[in-house]
């Protein structure tokens, strides 16, 4: 299971949790499982989020590998300027 | 739109007198063409005065005064070897207008006739006591520069009247003038406040003075109380303070995006003091 940190605005959608655990070996699987296991997050994830894996911000790539020990944060969807 | 290139002022006047729609004279065009392109004023008749003989001349008169042609551009005034020595304030006022490109085209008469209360070329002309020659259907007459503007965008010129020359009096001994303006940037801006000072000294004492404020009222304003604050003094602190106070008292500015009433009033006093110091140093030959 990968620990996914949520920004505080998302916490009310998952009963106040700061961190949720989901299965997944890639960013894409994590996102899919987040929606499946925590349906409250669906509107946020549908709207678009970024994810960070071990410090690297991943705006889009679903294929990026994730390990159970990876540091993973959900971030607000980022835009380029 | 009709474009005319009359060979004389009489002809220019005749065309203007017989025109029925909107008429503009074309000197440097830095107001006229900008207004045309931005759809503000589209003249029916555009009368170019640049083809009239003599309009590009800067001529010293017998009495020591100057006659400046109506198409002389700012850069030509700045580069003139003697004009700026006599009237540094007039030349620096004109030189503040626009940029290098604008300086190659813009004229003092255009600046005057555009009628802006913030025109940078005009206060120093008024302070110098300059006049213009006006050619019209009834012949030519001389009018003080101070009397030309009558309100924002308005002049006292009648239909068919065109300015045919700008006359600046002889400098005389122990005189000095200066013009300062306030803008938030260093160039390409409209004066928030402008101030010209022209004075004469006898030793350390000021004997004659004129102080003219721009952009603080519907027209450029010569302020007698400011002059009175200077005359008879050696420009000591008390005189400067009295000048500052008189300048503020003369302000009737508007509150707009370019400056508040309070700010314009404050800065009018500041510029009056600063311009007076420069003019005084020039009159005493301590500064060019």
């Amino acid at each position: 299971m990968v620990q996914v940190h949520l920004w505080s605005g998302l916490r009310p959608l998952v009963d106040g949790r700061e961190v949720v655990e989901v299965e997944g070996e890639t960013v894409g699987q994590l996102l899919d499982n987040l929606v499946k296991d925590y349906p409250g997050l669906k509107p946020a994830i549908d709207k678009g989020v970024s994810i960070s894996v071990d410090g690297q911000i991943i705006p889009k790539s679903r294929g990026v590998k994730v390990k159970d020990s990876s540091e993973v944060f959900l971030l607000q969807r980022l835009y380029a300027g | 739109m009709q474009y005319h290139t009359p060979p004389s002022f009489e002809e220019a006047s005749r065309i203007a007198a017989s025109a029925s729609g909107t008429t503009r004279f074309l000197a440097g065009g830095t107001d006229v063409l900008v207004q045309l392109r931005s759809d503000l004023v589209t003249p029916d008749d555009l009368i170019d005065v640049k083809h009239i003989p003599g309009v590009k001349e800067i001529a010293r008169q017998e009495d020591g005064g100057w006659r400046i042609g109506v198409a002389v551009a700012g850069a030509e005034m700045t580069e003139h070897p003697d004009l700026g020595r006599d009237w540094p304030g007039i030349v620096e006022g004109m030189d503040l207008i626009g940029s290098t490109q604008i300086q190659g085209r813009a004229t003092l008469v255009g600046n005057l006739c555009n009628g802006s209360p913030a025109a940078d070329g005009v206060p120093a002309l008024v302070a110098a006591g300059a006049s213009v020659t006006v050619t019209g259907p009834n012949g030519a007459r001389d009018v003080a520069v101070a009397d030309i503007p009558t309100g924002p965008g308005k002049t006292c010129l009648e239909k068919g009247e065109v300015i045919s020359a700008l006359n600046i009096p002889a400098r005389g001994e122990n005189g000095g003038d200066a013009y300062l303006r306030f803008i938030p940037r260093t160039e390409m801006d409209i004066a928030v406040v402008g101030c010209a000072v022209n004075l004469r000294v006898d030793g350390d004492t000021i004997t004659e003075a004129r102080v003219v404020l721009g952009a603080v009222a519907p027209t450029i304003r010569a302020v007698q109380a400011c002059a009175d604050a200077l005359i008879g003094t050696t420009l000591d602190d008390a005189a400067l303070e009295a000048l500052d106070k008189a300048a503020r008292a003369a302000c009737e500015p508007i509150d707009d995006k370019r400056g508040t009433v309070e700010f314009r009033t404050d800065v009018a006093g500041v510029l009056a003091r600063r311009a007076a110091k420069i003019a005084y140093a020039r009159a005493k030959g301590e500064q060019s």
Partner: protein
Amino acid sequence: MALDGPKQDFKYIGTRPERPDGWDKVTGKARFGADFSMPGMLHGAILRSPHAHAKIIKIDATKALALKGVKAVVTRADFPEGLEGEDWNIQENVMAGEKALYDGHAVAAVAATSQLIARDALKLIEVEYEVLPHVTDVDKAMAEDAPVIREGAADYSVPEGMHPNVVRYMESGRGDLEKGFAEADLVIEESFTTEAAHQGYIEPHACVANLGADGKGDLWCCTQGHWFVRQMCTAVLGLEATQLRVTPSEIGGGFGGKTTVFIDPVALALSRKAGRPVKLVMSRSEVLRATGPTASASMDIKMGMTKEGKITAASGTFRMQGGAFPGAPVDVTTMLAFANYDIEHVHHVGYDVMTNRPKQAAYRAPGAPMGAFATESVLDELCRGLGLDPIETRLKNAVKEGTPATFGPKFPPVGLIETLEEARAHPNYSVKLGPNQGRGVASGYWMNWGGETSASVAIGDDGSVQVSIGTVDIGGSRASMALMAAEAFGIPYENVRVSIADTGSLGINEPTHGSRATFASGLAIIEASREATRKLCQRAADKWGIDADAVTWEDGCAKPSGPNAGEFDPLTIAEIAAEMGSTGGPISGHHESTPDGFGGSFGTHVVDVEVDPETGRTTILRYLVVQDAGKAIHPAYVEGQFQGGAVQGIGWTLNEEYIYGEDGRLQNPIFLDYRVPVASDLPMIDTVIVEVPNPGHPYGVRGVGETGITPPLPAIANAVRDAIGVRMKKLPLTPPRVLAAIKARD
């Protein structure tokens, strides 16, 4: 993506050759948006709302259509219905539907045989409006009695009970604020505002559109990203993506404002209706009234510090308006507000608010400068209150590799500490200041971007190299691309030519935005070049009759990789190219990806100002930019980016602002009154390039375009504070405001 780690020894990278587009640009040969024309072309003009907020009751174009030379009039009725989300927002913004939402909002457009006729025709279009109450200020737009811009625009994030103008809400943070503030020796709480600033690019938007009734079309336009233009135009007009080919012109600045569309779909709609090509060129006042400036902001910041200078806690509330649509960059503002520092207890709240203003567009580091203004101002006050040096204090709190960012994850290698150390060591930091002078310091961050990227290289028959990229050249990037290709091939810079391909010639490329072009297109070129050199090696191997693995590419030649490979004279790229038709065909390389390894860039600015105590006018005396470039491919253009960011920041801080009247109309839609700095306002901007290589790029590149506008707002405000002894909390620092503050002080 597996990379070998940034390369360090370079032959071409780091040199300063002339930019390939330079001559054409200074001699007037380069073709910008408005320089394009076509046979039979019509000229378009757009009618714009004079009201800040009004219901459109009726549009009658009968008289305009009767004018000789008028070929078409379009209104919203000429655009498809049923769009959603951002596609609908863009459509609504380029042509008003039921309501005009801001002063300058397009309501109709004309195509005619001349520009003059088109403009005359606008005056003949009769529009009946019902004027509605309006609001242009962010705080007023959130108030209970504010007029509603549009019901139902809010997304899932907005808590119940908020005004319908609040369309997004964010909250993030960690730790225990109360505990953090309790640990502080000094806590400061202040509120700040910034006004909207426009990107101020010199070139107004311009395009020529040619769209047939069959739905096939061409568009030539000035843009930062032609695939974005294609996506937006085809969505707004209901066309098939690849049936519209978009070709970018040279571009006279964009700064984020040309990553979206304003006139292009309108020109296409006019062209489709008239059956002829249509050119549309905006005037400056149209640019200021109806394209996107950045958001304006209203912010409350609270920070605590120990007497040793350690930040114990920080919190911020950021209210931002981005015009009549969702999209103010409050997510980035909140995320980056405190990102320079290692703070255990931190909390951010953000509101995206709609007002009757034009739809905001990205502007260089969108959202970051406003937040930095507020937070770095408070940090400066803390340093003052505790008698601490601003650089030492920043060093004490600065993030480095492994520090958990205030927005969550741990930082990869970053260069904030290096920029602070360089700034401290720079002579500018020890110049003695005179009366009425002050010094300010601030740091800032931008996380940069990768984005979809596709690039190709092709070998010419003389061994020169043609590079095709999809990111337009705004700041000299052709030169950087050519340098990277030259390095990868080991051939002279002059032997590389870089072209910007149209949407028909490459895969999708995101715009030149997010400081990504040199990073992402550069990475693609290096990879594409490596693919091409592998093919070149293969041709040499075939010729020598040895295995391709036994051939290496070095200095523009194929060589046997070692003594065991055999004795062969090196084959130059020109020799291999001369024979390529008969040895297997043309040689090219291609690469496409959405690279993620973009590394963020930190910068530190030090500025000295002098304030005229009698007029409140601020003069910039000295300005130093120190920033991390990872690896400066072309140092001169990196310095240019640093300087440009500083200059735009100076404008935003001192004089640039959107001024709305009581009537909700923009008061200053010309450069005379929208005051960007002119050359004579500025000192030479000093620069120091710091290079902390980015592990995510083969040469270590980090984007440098955006970070540079983040520190100037607070750096200058801090310098003015130092000079006048009063903290200015409202931007811009216009002379009337500064003078009023000085008078209130005395």
